[in-house]
């Protein structure tokens, strides 16, 4: 640990350089250059070490190359340089030197890997199942099921168990930690301990078919109080519809095809193929974390999901405007 603190002292300068380079391009990007957990920060430190080494090597090698090409450029067609076939000492030197540097990098890699792969005990447990092209999110100890939006408390370890339902997906929230694949037939685990309150963007990183580009999600890091409130609300059954239009919407939902795939707690809708919609209106996005959850987008979605997210597998019959309005009114009530 002491050694890693030593090199941390030099590295922020290099790291800052990299950040500076990128900051101009992109203050908005989800990047681990701004880590929001020790898990991401450790990888960033290791990155910075390699950055230092590679920039130094780059300058050295490219410098030697350029110098030799320019300095030894042919001046007359009959010049005859000394015919040197090699130099054992030099060659041993440039075999051993890179090997040593790489061993050092490997040492830090090994150390960081062990720190990252030691699962914490306690904390919040989350089960994530990746499907084409959305995320099922479940808190087995808390009795909460949701989709595409993962709420976690700040400064507490969160452990994930990850499963792939159809094909391989990959779970990635750059600011909070590295990727871990969701492989059908295998339960993978990963964890992080978020240290900043805020909303962090995640994405599927493994190519998984047509709508791979639109398989995103968010992680909402909250204070413990806010998280507790969120859990309490999520545990409730769905809010009963109030207005007539919303009641009509509920009927459309539970009597239509929707129930084949979706669950709404406390109603007859118990499908598990698509996202659980019990507290749909409390989520900021829908459609696999890509579409802002508002009345206008929801209407457009119900009329033609393919237009908003090409390739998605939601099956929906042609709906009349009245049906769409009723469904939207109902879904908007599912706080």
């Amino acid at each position: 640990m002491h050694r890693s603190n030593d090199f941390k002292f030099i590295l922020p300068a290099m790291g800052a350089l990299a950040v500076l380079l990128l900051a101009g391009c992109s203050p908005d990007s989800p990047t681990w250059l701004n880590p929001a957990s020790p898990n991401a920060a450790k990888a960033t430190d290791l990155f910075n070490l390699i950055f230092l080494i590679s920039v130094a090597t780059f300058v050295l090698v490219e410098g030697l190359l350029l110098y030799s090409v320019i300095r030894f450029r042919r001046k007359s067609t009959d010049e005859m340089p000394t015919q040197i076939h090699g130099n054992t000492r030099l060659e041993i030197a440039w075999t051993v030197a890179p090997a040593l540097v790489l061993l050092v990098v490997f040492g830090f890699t090994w150390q960081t890997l062990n720190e990252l792969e030691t699962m914490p005990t306690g904390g919040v447990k989350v089960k994530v199942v990746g499907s084409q092209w959305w995320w099922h999110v479940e808190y087995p100890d808390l009795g909460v099921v949701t989709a595409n939006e993962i709420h976690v408390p700040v400064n507490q370890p969160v452990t994930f168990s990850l499963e792939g339902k159809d094909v391989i997906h990959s779970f990635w929230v750059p600011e909070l930690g590295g990727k871990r694949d969701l492989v059908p037939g295998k339960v993978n685990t990963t964890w992080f301990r978020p240290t900043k309150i805020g909303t962090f963007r995640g994405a599927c990183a493994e190519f998984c078919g047509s709508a791979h580009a639109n398989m995103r999600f968010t992680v909402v890091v909250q204070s413990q109080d806010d998280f507790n409130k969120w859990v309490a609300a999520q545990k409730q059954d769905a809010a009963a519809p109030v207005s007539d239009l919303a009641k009509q919407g509920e009927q459309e939902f539970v009597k239509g095809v929707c129930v084949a795939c979706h669950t709404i707690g406390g109603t007859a809708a118990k499908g598990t193929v698509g996202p659980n919609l019990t507290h749909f209106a409390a989520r900021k996005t829908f459609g696999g974390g890509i579409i802002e959850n508002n009345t206008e987008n929801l209407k457009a979605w119900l009329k033609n999901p393919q237009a908003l997210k090409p390739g998605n597998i939601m099956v929906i019959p042609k709906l009349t405007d009245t049906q769409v309005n009723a469904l939207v009114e109902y879904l908007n009530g599912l706080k």
Partner: protein
Amino acid sequence: MTTQATTMPTGKREYKGLMAWLTTVDHKRIGILYIIASVFFMLVGGIEALIMRTQLAQSNLKLVNPELYNQLFTMHGTTMVFLVIMPFLAGLGNYIVPLMIGARDMAYPRINALGVWLLILGGIFMNLSFMLGGAPDAGWFGYAPLSSIRTAGNPYGMDFWALGLQILGISSISAAVNFVVTILWMRAPGMKMNRLPLFVWTTLVTAFLILFAMPSIAAALILLFFDRNFGTFFFNAAQGGDPLLWQHLFWFFGHPEVYIMILPAMGIVSEILPVFSRKPLFGYAAIAYSSVAIGFIGFTVWAHHMFAVGLPPAINAAFSFASMIVAVPTAIKIFNWIATIWGGSVNLKAPMYYAVGFIALFVIGGLTGIYLAAVPVDFQLTDTYFVVGHLHYVLFGGSIFAIFGGIYYWFPKMTGKLLNDRTGVWQFWLQFIGMNLTFFPMHLLGILGMPRRIYTYAGDLGWDTLNLVQTIGAYLIAVSVAVFLWNVYVSLKNGEKASDDPWDADTLEWATSSPPPAHNFDSVPPVNSTRPLWDVKHAGVKWDKRAESAHLPNPSYMPFVLAFGLTVVMFGLIYNPIISLAGLVIFVAGFAGWVVEPVG
């Protein structure tokens, strides 16, 4: 040292025109066929890349739909790997290796022809899928179960992929066997192993890599085809299969494949640098041994493509270690190359620009590889644009730059005309700037969180500017390729005539006419060192130029028939077994003809 165009006995039969190409068993003509096919497919793969770059120029563009985009990147990768870089290097090896070792031809001329026809027909086979319901669409590494599940929208794309790659694999293996036997058994007197030109060394190591790596993907492709067509479930977890089995089988092939694409490129650079520095290669033995070392270590690193799949940390660490170690023999080469230039008399012609450009860019690809070998950093970078940037510095900055260097270097030998050097230098700078604009920002985008293989992205992610820069770079590369094609056209038509040895080179291919006669050499200079021709020119070695007798095999159209039959069999496996049966008949006929025809 002109070789008389004497009429050597060239077998009993002769064909003219197109038929002469179709029936050729001459390694030089076969080499040219490989190279032409490779350049053609480079244009195909390049157009695919341009469409993708146009789609990604800004956020939320709608030039192509996701289904087509997925086909484009799958076929771009597959094409550039299997139909451009591999066949170019195989073609160049075909043309140059027998000349370099002072041989009359490859060991098995008809198998050689079979290789090129399988490549051409396999490439056409796979690309026809674009017109037959959809091209392959699961990425060039075809991860199961995405690749093993048939989708209604594109039912046969991945079948074309599985069977097409099988054809190309047979082509590669046949070429590899031929290279091994040729290099081990057909060297001229005095051409000991420790005097082999480096391009021959790297081709030999590559041939062994192909022999050991290809069977792994061949097996994987058979399992994949069975899963898709016969209801097996090798990769289907729900029925007891394992998706990760595919990844192990694929990458056991896939990582050595990287060295298959880069080692001969390193060989090309190792030929160009000494000639254009007028010095011997610095540390010949170290470069040869390090190539062999890469060949071995290259087989122990495959799981670094799989760090995020959930392997135990100790396994990840072991593969991380091997991946760091494999960088050492590469570093040795880089320093030896620079030392070759150092103190030399550097003749900055187009081939040298490309060789130096290769080193400059390959260094970057090597350094970015270290980030990916460091497991925790890889957890962040894998499957992002950083990887795409890394691999293009290795394969474009590396392999493709060496390939263009090789073209500028050996074009006069192959055609008797020099390519225009000024135009070549223009092409180099356009390509160099274009490739850096295209591929360097990819690293930054990966760091900024952009996953690879996404057909679109939202505008609020901060990725627009860098993507636009890349797209501009990609068009600059396209311009550079157009300049190249123009140069070839103009130089073939009115180019400066090439002498036998226009670069004042060291190796045996320059000891015969440009282009060489069918029998390659009237007489081969004595070989006393790694630089036989240098010895003749500068060390007073005597070369007896009296012509030796040569006997050349008959041309044969059986290799084409055999390759055609096999391709028809593959079509039938997708559409109808009756077609396969017809293909089998053609195949057997070709085989029988092959056995009974007089070889001359």
